[in-house]
């Protein structure tokens, strides 16, 4: 399951630098994966197309691993002062699937990783 940011977000930006996968983007911004840039109407490679936001920080489900492979808990949720980073019921994945996602992302997009 990836994490999503609800419309309670106050746009403080605390979450964005904490994401090890660079899966979090400011509202209105384009996002990228494996060197390809995506805009507001572009579906993700998985087909997901319901996550982009013009107004609030948003999380790209194709890039979110719930911090599996990096941390014990999702870092966005841990640092969010207003509790708006929640498990996304529309993008449910098991731990095993998330581990495979990490492997896939490491193959196609090491540039996403933070130093």
């Amino acid at each position, binding site marked *: 399951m990836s994490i999503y940011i*609800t419309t*309670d977000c*106050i746009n*403080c930006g605390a979450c964005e630098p904490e994401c090890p996968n660079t899966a979090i983007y400011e509202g209105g911004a384009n996002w990228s994966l494996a060197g390809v840039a995506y805009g507001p109407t572009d579906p993700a490679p998985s087909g997901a197309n319901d996550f982009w936001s013009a107004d609030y920080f948003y999380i790209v489900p194709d890039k979110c691993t719930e911090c599996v492979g990096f941390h014990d808990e999702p870092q966005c949720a841990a640092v969010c*002062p*207003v*509790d708006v980073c929640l498990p996304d019921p529309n993008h449910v994945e098991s731990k095993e699937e998330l581990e495979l996602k990490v492997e896939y992302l490491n193959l196609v997009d090491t540039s996403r990783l933070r130093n």
Partner: protein
Amino acid sequence: MSFRDTFESGITEFNEGEYFACHDTLEEIWRAIRGESRRFFQGIIHAAAGLLHIERGNLPGSVSQLGKAIDKLRDYPSPHLGVDLERLLADLTPLREKLGRALEQGAPAPSDLRFPTISYTPDPLGFSALEAANDEHE
């Protein structure tokens, strides 16, 4: 800056309607603190966020954040760390109910809302105990 000084800055910002700044200030304490008062500080942050959402015209966000504030703050006795929680909850609860009714009816936020302020009496002993307890957690 001590927790107390930072907190008092945040209270001043809250009472001056500087809700985003208040959230920013109190977030410093919330991030640094461990132990039982952590949810108290987050409760005040939720209240500031709820009022910020009203100003920004985000009715669902205001209802949600004020609800989270009430849920967290009602777990503490009043006063807590100098904050008159009884009064704050007495202000936040009907405000949330009013906004919730507007949300259910698909109406905009009412224009006659009264934004609460925080009644605060300095509590140096409470903050000394808080700092000592936090040192033990580290």
